[in-house]
């Protein structure tokens, strides 16, 4: 292992550890990467900034050999890197931590880390030595973990540590981190940044992919900005400001939806002391109490996996609460099912549009009536009314500006934003009284996200109450009237958005009570 170096001496004399020159990658008509050239210096943290779909992940996938670039080449530590081979990337000292972890749940931490590090055909494993090496690395970089535990028992933060250890165990000297903070609380982010600092102090170089300006300003030495596949900026962090980065990233001022404060109306949804356990008896929601009024947006914040899924499932009618009361429009709900929730006027926008929101192989017109096909408008005596279904689709495609679609188009072939519009059209046209929007803008580009937000506001102005579950705090603060935080299945009191700020919410997401969060120094 090389001696520790002083970080970030970015002068012309130092040989870059990584050099990407003229990388171009096309997918059909789309140019995901357009002649991108980039260098990484030893001991440097380079932030790669860009909106969703700007080409960051594609670029890193090329670097790591998952994709082959159409043009351009890569040099690592002065030697050219063979294209399309993750193996070559690993042996050149490049390690990657994906946004979605690539761990085997029923295998131990040790198994997950050593996978692929030994000659595949060797007849035995030296588990003892592997375990000692993992412990040494964990201690050096503050990545505390037990090697024998099964991954399925680990928290999200711990899983991320396993991913990082996986790369370090392979002797990675260049670490690529794809949106690593998305799954962490603000407090966990702090300790994660300390780990990053320890690693660069040890001589590693890091590429940090993000779209969060604050984090980039806090941790990076240098920043490169991608926009629509092109490299539009590359400068030391000292020369950057939030504003300049935002402008470089978006390229234009995005008109964020304006909304006038509306006078909230009557209570449309009330939950009192709702509790929910899963099949293994684990508590998913505990004593959740909330009220939602017409014409308001109630934001639910929280680190992923603290009960958002359970809350959404409950409102969607997928699970029945074990205890507590649920009232919609003043009436108690006793028999819970998706159909019952729909019948009571709850419109649901699910978290995963591909898996839950639409049926990929169905035509757009069929997905648009997926929740109401049994209604007398669309069927009679057990048979569907084809013409009415067609006309409904034509109207909604027009009204919601669903692009690239006619009623007969296979839904699978639509873009993410247009697929989301299909779901929103289906939900909003029924004039729901309560709207559950679970991560409605995740994975959408800025324009599509703004459209989603505008549509939700319009529904709200039309008299609906909206529950917005999001892991994007900035979105929550911008859209909500009141915000509540889910932590380990417990929901805090909702507070007016004026009283909430990032720091308070962050502390609450880490389990502090609202009072502590506000009083904390």
């Amino acid at each position, binding site marked *: 292992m090389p001696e520790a170096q002083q970080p970030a001496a970015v002068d012309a004399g130092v040989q870059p550890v990584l050099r990407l020159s003229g990388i171009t990658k096309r997918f059909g008509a789309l140019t995901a990467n357009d002649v991108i050239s980039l260098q990484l210096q030893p001991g440097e943290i380079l932030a790669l900034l860009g909106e969703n779909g700007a080409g960051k992940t594609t670029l890193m996938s090329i670097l790591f050999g998952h994709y082959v670039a159409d043009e351009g080449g890569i040099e690592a530590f002065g030697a050219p890197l063979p294209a399309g081979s993750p193996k070559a990337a690993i042996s050149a000292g490049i390690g990657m931590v994906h946004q979605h972890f690539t761990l085997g749940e029923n295998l131990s931490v040790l198994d997950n880390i050593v996978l692929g590090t030994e000659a595949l055909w060797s007849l035995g494993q030296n588990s003892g030595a592997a375990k000692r090496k993992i412990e040494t690395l964990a201690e050096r970089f503050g990545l505390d973990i037990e090697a024998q535990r099964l991954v399925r028992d680990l928290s999200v933060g711990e899983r991320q540590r396993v991913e990082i250890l996986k790369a370090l165990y392979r002797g990675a000297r260049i670490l690529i981190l794809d949106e690593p903070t998305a799954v962490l609380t603000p407090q966990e982010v702090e300790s994660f940044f300390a780990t990053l600092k320890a690693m660069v102090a040890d001589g590693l170089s890091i590429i940090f992919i993000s779209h969060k300006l604050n984090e980039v300003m806090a941790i990076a030495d240098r920043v490169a900005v991608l926009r629509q596949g092109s490299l539009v900026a590359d400068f030391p962090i000292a020369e950057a400001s939030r504003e300049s980065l935002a402008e470089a990233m978006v390229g234009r001022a995005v008109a964020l939806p304006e909304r006038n404060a509306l006078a909230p109306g009557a209570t449309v949804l009330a939950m009192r002391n709702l509790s929910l356990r899963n099949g293994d008896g684990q508590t998913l929601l505990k004593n959740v109490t909330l009220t939602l009024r017409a014409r308001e947006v109630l934001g639910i914040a929280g680190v992923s996996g603290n009960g958002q899924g359970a809350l959404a499932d409950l409102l969607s009618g997928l699970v029945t609460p074990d205890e507590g009361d649920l009232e919609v429009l003043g009436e108690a709900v006793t028999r819970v*099912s*998706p159909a019952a929730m729909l019948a009571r006027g709850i419109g649901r926008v699910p978290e995963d549009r591909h898996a839950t929101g639409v049926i*990929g192989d169905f035509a757009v017109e*069929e997905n648009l009536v*997926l*929740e109401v096909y049994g209604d007398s408008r669309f069927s009679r005596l057990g*048979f*569907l009314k*084809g013409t009415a279904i067609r006309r409904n689709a034509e109207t909604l495609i027009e009204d919601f500006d669903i692009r690239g679609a006619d009623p007969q*188009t296979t839904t699978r072939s639509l873009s993410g934003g247009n697929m989301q519009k299909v779901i929103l059209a289906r939900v909003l046209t029924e004039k729901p009284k309560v709207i559950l929007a679970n991560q409605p803008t995740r994975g959408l580009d800025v324009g599509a996200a703004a459209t989603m937000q505008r549509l939700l506001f319009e529904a709200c102005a039309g008299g609906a109450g909206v529950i917005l579950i999001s892991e994007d705090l900035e979105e929550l603060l911008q859209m909500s009237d009141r915000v509540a935080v889910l932590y380990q299945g417990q929901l805090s009191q909702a507070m007016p958005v004026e009283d909430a700020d990032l720091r308070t919410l962050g502390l609450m997401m880490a389990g502090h009570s609202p009072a502590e969060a506000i009083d904390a120094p």
Partner: protein
Amino acid sequence: MRLEPRSHVPLWLNLAAPLSAVALAFVLCALLIVWAGAPVFAAYGALLNGAFGSVFAISETLTRAAPLIFTGLAAAVAFRAKLWNIGGEGQLYAGALAATYFGTGLIELPPFLMIPFLFLVGAIAGGLLLLLPVILKLKLRVDEVVTTLLLNFVVLLFANYLLFGPWKDPLAMGWPQAAPIIDEGVLSPLIARTRLHSGLIWAVFFAVCAWAFIRYSKWGFEIRAVGNNPTAADFAGIPLGATVLRTAMMSGGLAGMAGVCELAGLKGYLTLDLSPGFGYTGIAVAMLAGLHPLGVIASAIFIAAIYNGADAMSRAMSISNYLADVMTATALLLVLASVLFVRFRPRLR
């Protein structure tokens, strides 16, 4: 190579893909004919002649197609809902057993009621047999592929027991066969001096019903939704359990009717060689048809033609008629691959 989803599938592609797969299957099986030392074109000529060469040949092919339409529909309907019913063979026998129980004198009705009645009891028996694995799948997540397969053996042994034991017809001179279906229940012949019977009409009728049902009915919409994406279907309020149970009753019922069709149309009494694997072949019929109920009619006739033709071919030259099974299996696999190219557009990167 990458696969991109197609936004529209042109009709010609839907037809061309399976047809070219079948053509390729013929080419591959020609190698076996060469191996057997027979001239390829003459052999295929004998096959074609045996399948369609005369009125009698055509009638035999259609006779064989009738039960295959039923079992093909059974597989198509189930597979549409991603219900892997491989138990068509057992359900076929269950249908035949029920029809034997009710149709050999227990109940006597005039023909215009007796025949639908036999189809009904056969369908109920087949459906009930599939209900057990489906309930196990819904309640306990027991894989239905294995359970339906295993039940085939159980049902056949049960039929074996009945035919060697309590149901053995004393007039059959020791052969293991049941008493004949009463005259009112026998399906009438369609062409004189052939074995072709009105079971074919029933089969085509049910294929059209199944098509209209899947395409235009509410329950058909639900079956397609559950088959394509059960999570999204559940989320949208479509009742998963009820849909799967309905599918099971339909699928098992269609397979049960195949048993009735053979029993009441061909032999008139139950034997243990009622079906030479129609239940299994139905899977190939359904896949060849792209799970389309109307396509099932065509593919059942096609596969029946292969089997009849292969019988004729093996009589004419020294080629084993197992070639028909090989051709069916080859065509099944190739069609499976071709379907991929219908749904996706291959792109070189």
